[in-house]
């Protein structure tokens, strides 16, 4: 009974908090539910949400990708360059291909060179950002105003049945991600690997293929997210979305996916993304300066992690370390026979 309640909280707790927040939001921010504001919140949440969906897989597999901020900047810059060179098709293709390439770079560092994921992606965070800086050293790339009629530029602003297109893309991404996680062999293997990499190996799961898949998936999700991002803000350079990785990880962990791997809830991540966006919207409309918004975001993350930490406190002592290093459960060295 105790466990099933806990399990229920894992999946739906954040959703309940979201609903609560939505219930009090109009009191604090009178025009919260105005069509304009609601659409803006949903549109704003899209790029964070899409990357968080990919990140849910990474964290469920017991690793995380710190380079998503650099990836987003790079994908955005390259996509804008693609648009300038060849219009909508090239812009979309460039974003997706750049995301995939970034993911594969991470994956090969991690699998071929055996660099722990969190350090590898901490390094590539700076590398990707650095490349984006280099590409924009003559000034940020922007969408030209005279192209406002182009279908690509419309992605960010268009609504279908009152719902912003970026949000619809996010819904589609979550539907696909949910199926992938819950109803495919690959998704199950991700969870198995996150739960115990060593045991997963003896279940016939290839650690290399699994990690390549997970990091490529994160890369592609960043590519998709970049499309909704640049068509919203119209400009990008190396500093775009500084600190993005933290927001993404915060959303996934808030949603109830445990940092120690083996568990992943896309419904939770979805709700947490909306929660963060709503919170952000409220802070902005209350006129809270961005310096303080950072403080609130960091505080929310620590609270979420405290809850996660308390939940896993009684888990095996090595599990947290595994979450930190992403190295996979290190068998106690003392047990190794010579």
């Amino acid at each position: 009974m105790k466990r099933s309640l806990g399990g229920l909280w894992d999946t739906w707790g954040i959703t309940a908090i979201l609903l609560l927040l939505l219930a009090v939001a109009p009191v604090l921010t009178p025009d919260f539910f105005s069509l304009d504001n609601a659409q803006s919140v949903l549109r704003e949440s899209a790029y964070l949400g899409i990357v968080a969906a990919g990140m849910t897989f990474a964290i469920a597999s017991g690793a995380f990708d710190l380079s998503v901020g650099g990836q987003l900047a790079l994908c955005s810059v390259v996509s804008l360059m693609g648009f300038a060179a060849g219009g909508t098709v090239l812009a979309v293709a460039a974003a997706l291909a750049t995301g995939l390439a970034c993911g594969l770079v991470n994956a090969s560092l991690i699998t071929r060179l055996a660099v722990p994921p969190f350090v590898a992606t901490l390094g590539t965070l700076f590398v990707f950002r650095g490349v984006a800086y280099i590409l924009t050293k003559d000034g940020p790339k922007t969408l030209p105003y005279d192209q406002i009629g182009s279908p690509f530029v419309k992605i960010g602003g268009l609504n279908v049945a009152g719902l912003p297109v970026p949000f619809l893309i996010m819904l589609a991404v979550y539907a696909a991600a949910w199926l992938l996680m819950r109803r495919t062999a690959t998704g199950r293997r991700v969870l198995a690997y996150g739960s115990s990499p060593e045991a997963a190996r003896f279940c016939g799961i290839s650690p290399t293929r699994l990690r390549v898949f997970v990091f490529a998936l994160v890369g592609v999700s960043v590519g998709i997210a970049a499309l909704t991002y640049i068509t919203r803000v119209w400009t990008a350079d190396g500093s775009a979305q500084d600190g993005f990785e933290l927001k993404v990880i915060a959303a996934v962990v808030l949603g109830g996916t445990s940092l120690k791997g083996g568990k992943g809830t896309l419904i939770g991540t979805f709700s947490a993304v909306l929660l963060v966006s709503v919170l952000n919207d409220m802070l902005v409309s209350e006129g809270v300066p961005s310096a303080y918004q950072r403080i609130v975001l960091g505080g929310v993350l620590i609270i979420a992690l405290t809850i996660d930490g308390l939940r896993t406190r009684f888990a095996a002592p090595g599990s947290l370390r595994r979450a930190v290093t992403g190295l996979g459960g290190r068998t106690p060295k003392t047990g190794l026979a010579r």
Partner: protein
Amino acid sequence: MTAVLRRVPLMLPLIVVVLVLGLATDSFLTGGNVENVLVAAGIVALPGLAMTFCLAMGEFDLSIGSTVSLAGVICCSSLIAGQPLFVAMALALAAGAAIGLANGLVVTKLGVTPFIATLATLVIVRGISLAYSGGHDQIVSSTGLKYLVGGRPLGIPMPIVLAVIATVVAWWAMNRTRFGRWVCSVGSNREAARVSGLPVDRIRIAVYVLVGVAGGVWGLLISSQLQKGNGQLGMGFELDAITVVVIGGTALLGGRASIVGTVLGALLIETIRNGLNLLNTPPAYQRVSVGLLLIAALAIKGLRRADIPVAPTVVPEATR
């Protein structure tokens, strides 16, 4: 000689880089430039030494870059407010210690994963620093503060003096005292440390405070160099501090540490950075190169580990 090279793995790349730069540029091996490299290495070695303890414990502190900014802002704005220098510096160091204490408490008492906890403090402290500085430079003109980087006791630049003293103390503390051994014990097997009766939480908090204070020192040195503090300083510095430790050979998972390696790591990174400057490369490339260096160091370690055939695990029965 080969024994030294094997024991201190960074020696060889360092020699190679120095030789290459010496040949490729006219200015690298001039006295003034070598001193520049040593000063820069001394400045990054100080936080690196503290970070060595953190990694030896198997943990990370990512918040150090924000601490640098906040310490600088506090010191400079206190000076502007007319406080005497030592009060301003004490306040800055106290802020660093407080951040370290907060990290330590969150990590030990709330059970939050260090990596993410300090990522969160990174953002929070950055926010505080931006808010406190009001988003603009706190420019000072203090000869006393300037002495921290520009002073030359006995003709040796101050950062080098500080780094040498800190290295000796850190080496002794790490390798010969209970504190250092306990830090490695916690990194090697935290559960065993607990069962052996080591004050695990106090050790961990102490190390975070140490890193916090080192971040404060770093902030003072940067402010001394620039004669200002602002909310933007120190961005990405955590990467530098961790990189010098990791390329120096300290085990990522804790348990083993190399103080000498950290110092050589600082020398290597600053030599490369100095070389890139001399070769007129833009700053963006320097950031990229530090990232690549970190990855390369780990990759080499990873490849070495991969050479060892997989030992089948024979683990004492542990299932209940």
